[in-house]
């Protein structure tokens, strides 16, 4: 049914372009997980990710008339990337840290994970591993982090990443290589959390 879905999406986009907020909200519901995932991976915490996601949808509504076809998902991801950059800049300008943020992070800040784990133990292990990986991602410098998330989590091509981040392909290649090397070194420190097959990373 992909064609039907796509046709349906195009209808919704056209209605939104004519100013239908209802149609736009259907698209929001359809893509909010995608955008939230992206912003969470880039921002590293739930409140900032929520802010960036909301800003992205507001910006998308404002710019919907400039959408000229192509992948709507890619178009939204670009806007979400920009809103994440904006949010990161805003956070730099006002590095207000709430008192509770100073305490060690607990499970409350963990992103809601879809129910895929077979057992509670497995779910806990997955959760810990994911948190360790996210901590490693958070440790990357901004540009490397965005590039890594767009490439290795969202699956965008070098060209798309270059377009999203206003960078040259060579820069993308270099950022990605450094980011992957850093993640690898970071994960070596949490070997005990890795599944058996992944412990080869010596």
């Amino acid at each position, binding site marked *: 049914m992909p064609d039907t879905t796509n046709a349906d999406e195009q209808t919704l986009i056209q209605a939104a372009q004519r100013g239908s907020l209802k149609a736009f909200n259907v698209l929001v519901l359809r893509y909010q997980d995608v955008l939230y995932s992206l912003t969470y991976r880039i921002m590293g915490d739930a409140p900032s990710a929520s802010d960036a996601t909301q800003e992205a949808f507001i910006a998308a509504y404002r710019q919907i008339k400039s959408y000229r076809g192509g992948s709507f998902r890619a178009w939204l991801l670009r806007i979400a990337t920009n809103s994440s950059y904006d949010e990161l800049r805003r956070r730099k300008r006002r590095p207000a840290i709430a008192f509770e943020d100073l305490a060690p992070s607990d499970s409350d800040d963990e992103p809601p994970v879809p129910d895929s784990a077979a057992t509670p133990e497995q779910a806990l292990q997955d959760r810990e591993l994911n948190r360790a990986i996210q901590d490693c991602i958070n440790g990357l410098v901004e540009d490397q982090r965005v590039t890594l998330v767009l490439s290795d989590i969202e699956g965008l091509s070098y060209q798309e990443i270059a377009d999203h981040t206003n960078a040259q392909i060579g820069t993308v290649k270099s950022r990605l290589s450094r980011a992957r090397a850093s993640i690898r070194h970071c994960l070596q420190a949490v070997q005990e959390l890795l599944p058996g097959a992944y412990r080869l990373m*010596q």
Partner: protein
Amino acid sequence: MAIVSEQDHELLSAYVDGMLSENERLALEARLRSDETLLRELTALYLTLALLKQLPPLAAPRDFTLEAAPARWLIFPATPVFSALSAAAATFLVAIGLLFLLSSGGQQAAPSGDQAQVAQQITATPTLAQTATGPEQFYAATGTPAQETAEIGVMIAPVESSETPPEAGAAATANLAASTMADESAPAAATEEAAISIAAAPTQEAARESGPTGTPTATVTSTEGTTSAAFESAPAALPSATTEIRPEADTSGDAFGGGGRSMTTETPAAQLEIMQALPSETPTQPPTATVTSTETASAAPTASPASAVAQNTGGLEPLLGGALVLGGGLLLGIAFMTGVRSREKRIRARRQER
């Protein structure tokens, strides 16, 4: 752990993404067959990617649907005509602002480098004390109460420039005397009204203040009283005094426009003389009017703060104006540049979308 160079890291990273050219790929694969360290590094890279890819998509913690249509941004029409007009307006405003600032800066320095002296000059506004003797003598002759004389003296204060040279001062006195004489046909009460009407709105207060001060000794010898009253009126009278000092300022008429008819009709000649006499005077030389009375000198310290404020305010006016215009120009320029940038961004985005 064996060390792999950054260049090799980049090659491996591009290799797993299929971003190497055919030649690069073949060369790397040949090395991988013989270089175990490189091969281990490649394996680790694959595992890292696998770990990243297994990260689950997250569920949004809430609905991000919009409750109301967000306001659309006001976007400048980035047409060539608008751009050109914005640029021209910005340039014009900046130029005007700079002109204001430069001219006001020059004028501030011109009359006298010595602030104290300028303060004294403004303090000397009361040379009307001397001037006042004209009306006083006149009133003494005509029997008009001395109080009115004092008030008129105060009213005149802002009109008479502190730098009034003796001849010009004399001319002004003569003119004033003449103007007062023209009004003399009116009764004393009417003269009082005229005095109030001569003063511009802000000066009126000073006139009322000066009344009681001048009253007790407001005889022919009441120079002290008149002087102090004039000092009090100095700040209020400042705007007009400032405009008079400038030779090019032609607003003095406006400053007194709301004032008495006699002043606007009679004084121009005297003022003209004053203005002509001004530039020829050496700035360092204290105005003769200032030193004509010892009372003025003794009263000077009490008046100096007020006069200093007056001087500052006078200098600030054009400075502030210039700064405002300059700021406006810069803001417009920034807005213009932002518009251009956003336009470029939009164009680039559209190109990329295509």
